[in-house]
């Protein structure tokens, strides 16, 4: 239902922007509003540099809106896929040599990436995250649950390996993670963080 709704909205936006040829600013604004947050999140992960991600974000919307105005899309329901590909191509084409993707290390981009820990607000946020996690750990009922979370979130071990080592069922593993996420969400909300 969720995906159908999304594809229907996407097809409608593509149709309106193409037919409007630049005059349906409401549709173009809606396109940006709808995809902006997700696109920026993806680009920040990809680029590892907020300033570069902001530039790519703007450029992606410019390219996509121009394309929709001129030619529309063959498969209008795949608007998200088109935005995704455009953003990736822009990054790969023009910026790959400047900053490597964050998950591949940041050595080449060291000079360009601001230090998040240097920002007192960021530092406070990180300290709060650590404090909430300590509280969460303290509330866990068993050492085994703690081990599951340590191994998944810190050592980043695979679920299958953790389950095999600790003789756990997949269901038990999922339940521990689900409860931890839920509790963390509650703690964040009570701390005033979304």
């Amino acid at each position, binding site marked *: 239902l969720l995906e159908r709704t999304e594809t229907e909205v996407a097809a409608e936006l593509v149709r309106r922007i193409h037919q409007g040829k630049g005059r349906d600013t409401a549709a173009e604004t809606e396109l940006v509003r709808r*995809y902006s947050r*997700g696109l920026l999140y993806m680009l920040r992960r990809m680029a590892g540099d907020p300033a570069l991600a902001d530039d790519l974000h703007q450029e992606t919307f410019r390219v996509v809106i121009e394309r929709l105005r001129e030619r529309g899309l063959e498969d209008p329901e795949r608007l*998200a896929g088109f935005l*995704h590909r455009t953003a990736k191509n822009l990054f790969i084409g023009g910026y790959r040599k400047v900053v490597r993707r964050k998950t591949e*290390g940041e050595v080449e981009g060291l000079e360009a990436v601001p230090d998040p820990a*240097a920002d007192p607000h960021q530092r406070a946020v990180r300290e709060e995250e650590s404090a909430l996690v300590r509280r969460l750990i303290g509330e866990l009922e068993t050492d085994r649950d703690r081990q599951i979370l340590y191994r998944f979130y810190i050592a*980043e071990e695979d679920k299958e390996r953790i389950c095999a080592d600790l003789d756990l069922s997949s269901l038990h593993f999922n339940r521990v993670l689900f409860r931890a*996420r839920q509790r963390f969400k509650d703690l964040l909300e009570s701390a005033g963080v979304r």
Partner: protein
Amino acid sequence: MMRLGVAESWMEREMDHENIENDHVADLYLQGKLTPEEADRFEEHYLSCQECLDRLGRAERLARGFKRAAAEDAARLAAVRQAGFFAALARLGRSRQAGLAVAALFMVLLLPGILAYRELGRLGQELDRTREALAREQEKPAPAAPSTPTVVEDRAALERAQRAEAERQRLEGELERERSARAGLEKDLAQARQPQTNTPILSLSPERSAGGAEPTHQIRLPATPGWIVLSLELDAPEFETYQVTLLRAGQEIWRGNGLEPNETDSLSVSLPTALLNPGDYVVRVEGAPAGGRPGPVAQFTFRALKG
């Protein structure tokens, strides 16, 4: 990395939030464990899904919180390990404790002193022999016309005695310095055997801006000698071991080789505060490839303030 069983089934299934939750897709995405195809599919989904964006944000915070908490614990543990010898001493019985401490002191401090004593004794005996020989020569009745060889022998004996006396004085000075150093170290040893509480821990993130900026991290040096722990956060460790160099005003203060990152991708270094004076410090981390020269990986700065 292909996650057989989880990711394959997830790829085959409908992109709905129940599957995303049960298959831990957000966590695996953040850990970089989805295949490129899986990552693309999830990215296309969350581009317009506020719920998944919230989910990703929380997953990121949770993982970061765990890692930070673990890094803090690891740094504390490193401080405890650093004092492991003294802790082990503390666990022994009092007599064994004293015995071991005396043995350690013997090896480090007393042995050079004893060697100096032996050398001093040898030189003392030589000096005495020389003096006796000189006295015997002086007690002999003075010859009417002393032959030249006798005068030469006397002068040679006197020179030997003077040299031995100078050497004796030098060794006595050396012995005094040894005694003084031993007293200082005994005091430090006694202090180090006391448990250290509230060990200062400084978590450092790599400097990313251009050099020359003021250090953002500060640490206040404790009034009494002790340890501080530097926890150096590495972005993406690529090497098995690292070399860490501590510099002040371009001068190397300390260097450690063969350091391995812990499970939270950090290097923990415990330093005696006696090594630090108030001022700005640079910590240079270099990756050490097998059989190659270490290359720069990250640089950290901090300012030490007077306690």
